[in-house]
């Protein structure tokens, strides 16, 4: 159990490339934090700095009130699960799980009890005498987790642990990680580029881009009130649709459609009268039946939903839109569907930040 504080953390490599800018966060005891972002955004670097595998250029890292900024990895009492499992191929599952405790010269009987308990939690009891090569990817990742569990560390760090697994196994292992967190009540930091993992696992998500934190919040906060255009486009599948609109009186005017604003929206955009703003609409917030005519391009049936890709004006890429309609639809290319936007997000055209009530 641990409380972790990251205070003004920077990472600048020897070649002067800055990977992380002014990272600030407080991780509460027992929290599940997911760092999400595209490749190269600095999330793994941040995790490696926490683990002690990378030096921290500036800032402080505090674990349970103790400054561990310069502490070596072995003294941090953290366990890390890697994407490639990092298991010893010549050792059995049992030996792999017991290895770190054996190195610490713990009582063999105690090691045995801990390994059996961890194996029981991870449903690995029948695999203990097998070598990693005899296990599936999901089982190997469970062994890697078991190796962390036996140590009973203050903090669990996961670096894209599900990236090597196929879709089905990824889903089941994700559920296992969630159950594990609930069962252990441990503080966990998890890095992924997969927003589904982030949304399903996290108590709080840290969304990163280009080495900077874009937003920290609960999954619902990131989905419902994205702080800027990056978060809005990154969280949500399919991604949010964006249009440039002019705020004019009660109306939002785009070259392709005109929408009347509600009194709340009008109040929200009162300072933007006569200015352009970016309107964001999630595909699931576009509904059939309305006043805005949309020309269907392609129709993808997913069973429960149908993804309709279309446009408001032929040949104009800015008029493209993706809609997620409920149920099964059979639109043909060229069909015209009238739609309405039942929830809209507004972003400042200049800064890209979400427009919030003053």
């Amino acid at each position: 159990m641990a409380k972790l504080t990251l205070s003004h953390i920077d990472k600048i490599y020897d070649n002067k490339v800055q990977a992380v800018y002014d990272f600030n966060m407080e991780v509460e005891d027992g929290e599940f934090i997911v760092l999400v972002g595209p490749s190269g955004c600095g999330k793994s670097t941040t995790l490696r700095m926490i683990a002690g595998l990378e030096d921290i250029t500036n800032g402080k890292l505090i674990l349970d009130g103790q400054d561990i900024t310069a502490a070596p990895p072995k003294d941090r009492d953290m366990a890390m699960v890697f994407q490639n499992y990092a298991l010893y191929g010549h050792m059995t599952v049992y030996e792999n799980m017991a290895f770190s405790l054996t190195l610490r010269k713990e009582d063999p009987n105690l090691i045995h009890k801990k390994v059996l308990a961890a194996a029981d939690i991870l449903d690995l009891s029948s695999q203990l005498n097998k070598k990693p090569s005899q296990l599936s990817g999901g089982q190997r990742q469970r062994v890697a987790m078991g190796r962390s569990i036996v140590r009973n560390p203050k903090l669990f760090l996961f670096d894209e642990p599900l990236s090597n697994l196929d879709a089905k196994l990824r889903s089941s292992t994700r559920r296992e990680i969630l159950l594990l967190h609930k069962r252990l009540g441990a503080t966990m930091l998890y890095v992924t580029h997969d927003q589904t993992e982030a949304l399903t696992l996290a108590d709080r998500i840290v969304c990163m881009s280009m080495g900077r934190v874009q937003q920290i919040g609960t999954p619902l906060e990131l989905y419902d009130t994205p702080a800027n255009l990056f978060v809005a486009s990154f969280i949500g599948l399919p991604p949010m649709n964006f249009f440039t609109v002019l705020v004019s009186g009660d109306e939002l005017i785009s070259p392709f459609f005109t929408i009347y604003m509600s009194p709340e929206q009008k109040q929200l955009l009162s300072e933007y009268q006569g200015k352009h703003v970016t309107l964001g609409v999630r595909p699931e917030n576009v509904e059939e039946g309305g006043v805005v005519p949309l020309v269907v391009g392609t129709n993808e049936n997913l069973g429960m939903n149908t993804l309709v890709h279309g446009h408001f004006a032929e040949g104009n890429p800015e008029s493209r839109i993706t809609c997620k309609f409920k149920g099964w639809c059979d639109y043909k290319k060229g069909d015209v569907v009238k739609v309405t936007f039942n929830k809209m997000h507004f972003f400042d055209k200049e800064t890209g930040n979400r427009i919030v009530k003053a």
Partner: protein
Amino acid sequence: MSDEKFRLKLEFVENSFVKVDRMRYEKNKTSSNLAILAIVFNALFFVSIYKSDVGTWYYSILIGISIVYNLLFMMIVFLISEGSKNYKINYSYIAIVVGALQFVRLFIYPRLAHGATTQSTGEVVQVMLGAQFVRCIIYLIVSGVCLIASAIIGIKKCKALEKHLKAIDGLV
């Protein structure tokens, strides 16, 4: 029985159970390593026994048998090491036989060579001098003891594990 005594007894029983239970997943490294040690001491014996300044005394069928036996010994004991590592009791029984043969070997080459004399550069010399003889004897004895110890430990552990597995089978 006092609470403390009862607690200690319970702890002892639990620890004994765990100690045996560990064998389900841990290799019998003690037996295996002792067998390897037997190979090491046998090799030391093998390289210590021959001398080149004693004329043709060693030139007999015995040298061929000795070389072949040493090669076989190393191979068999390596197999014993691997077998006993995985709690295979038969390998431990073989280890007893091979270990006992090491003691028999004391009366073949070291003793024969120690008692023999030969002509070398016109002088009568003893084939194996006292210091070399003692060294050879020690290497062979240690090698034999290692093998027998490996076998005893192996048999003990195999039987304990077998009993434990039966008990566990009864529980589940």
